[in-house]
């Protein structure tokens, strides 16, 4: 078994798991954080995207043992009891999601982008979301929502 202690959404958590356990399985099966979705499990679809030490990664491609001592943000870490995160709000406002299965991964990928680049171009947004497959929406309304959320996070626009 591998002992892992990491910070998830600002809280220190520990678990003891078989060494082959992926970060995604650790989050879902040990900590019941089921917002990160299990899609392809081989890094193609991006539905499991989480932020590790500031960078978006596919949680299915990372071993639990690799995140020992590191900082992980999942979709559950974005909203507060009072409010949605501005990116989540913009996705709601723009009807950016349809079936929604890719949603947590897309929103985390967008957060990963905006944390590093608060004023991205449309091409940079497309590039940042290119690891997240969506069968429903054609991505257009997602890109618009990320642009809008960026304006709100930069303080150029009031939240809706």
């Amino acid at each position, binding site marked *: 078994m591998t002992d892992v202690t990491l910070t998830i959404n600002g809280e220190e958590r520990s678990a003891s798991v078989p060494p082959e356990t992926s970060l995604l399985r650790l989050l879902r099966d040990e900590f019941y954080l089921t917002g990160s979705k299990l899609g392809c499990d081989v890094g193609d679809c991006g539905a499991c995207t989480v932020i590790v030490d500031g960078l978006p990664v596919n949680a299915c491609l990372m071993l639990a043992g690799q995140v020992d001592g590191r900082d992980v943000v999942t979709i559950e870490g974005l909203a507060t009891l009072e409010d949605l995160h501005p990116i989540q709000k913009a996705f709601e406002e723009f009807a950016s999601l*349809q079936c929604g299965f890719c949603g947590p991964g897309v929103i985390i990928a967008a957060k990963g982008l905006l944390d590093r680049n608060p004023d991205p171009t449309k091409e940079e947004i497309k590039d940042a979301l290119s690891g997240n497959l969506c069968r429903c929406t054609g991505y257009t309304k997602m890109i618009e929502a990320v642009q809008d959320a960026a304006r709100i996070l930069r303080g150029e626009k009031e939240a809706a």
Partner: protein
Amino acid sequence: MKKRGKGMGCMWYPIGFTVMANPSAATVKVNEDGTATLITGTVETGQGSLTVLGQIAAEELGISTDDVHVVSADTDATPMDTGAIASRTTYVTGNAIQLAAEKAKNILFDVAAPMLGVRPDQLEAKDRRIQVKGFPQSCLPIGEVAAHAQNGAGTPALGSASYNPPTVAMDPETGQGKPFSTYVYATQIAEVEVDEETGEVEVLRIAAAHDCGTAINPMLVEGQIQGGISMGVGMAIQEEMLFDDEGRQINPNLTNYIMPTSLDMPDLEVDIVENFDPTGPFGAKGVGEPTAVATSAAICNAIYDAVGARIYNLPATAEKVLAAIKSKDHSDRQKYLPAG
């Protein structure tokens, strides 16, 4: 060298099943607090159908969409619905809901008429009130009328209805008939860039004009069209199921079955062509599947415009486009058809 071209695809598409029965049913009840409950068997799959169906019930009852509580897709309790298929939900389920809401509304009119001292046909439902047409100051809150229907008149304000699109079976000899109750129409124009050396196609821009009858929720219609175009782009240049000699799919995964990512999406321009269909709920028809129909035709025509190569089977992969560019004999249609 990269060459640009433009192409157009036009289509019509039917709403509902081909002649076969595909009914929907619904129950609408107006509650004593002025809200309404809509009971329908249809399933929300993310396209926003329950929002649109709630809007239809609200419009018929003169209340806000937020006032409509939708209960859906519980086969123990809701009427069976043929399903979120055949681009039929807004049209078929919507018609059933409008009819059910109208029945509930007529009960409210019957109850309100003596209270307001007019005939039922002089009433209308608007702004959460039952009011006299032309004299909106003579009115009662809809919840008060619903309460009186329940507790005074003893005729609770509820209605159930079903709808099955009327069709005429096709004659097996002449092929004549009317297999669908209504149709939608669309035109899409694509602009592509084709690399003459590699055959690679990039779709730069697509403009899509779609008729869906009345667009009950234009934002959701736009979402359907944008999503359909992404499927159409995949169908046109990327997505292909490959099989081995035994008939087993050799790319049953997202690594080898290539679908569009955000980087593959062209700039989209959506134009909703408003049009009232008298057979639909508030003039609405449908928008689901038709959105993906014209895309691949428009893209293949654009490829032809760019490099003079005709692609007769999809997807127009780089290999196929390059072979078509190199072959000067574009008239030999058989060449590009699948083997066998």
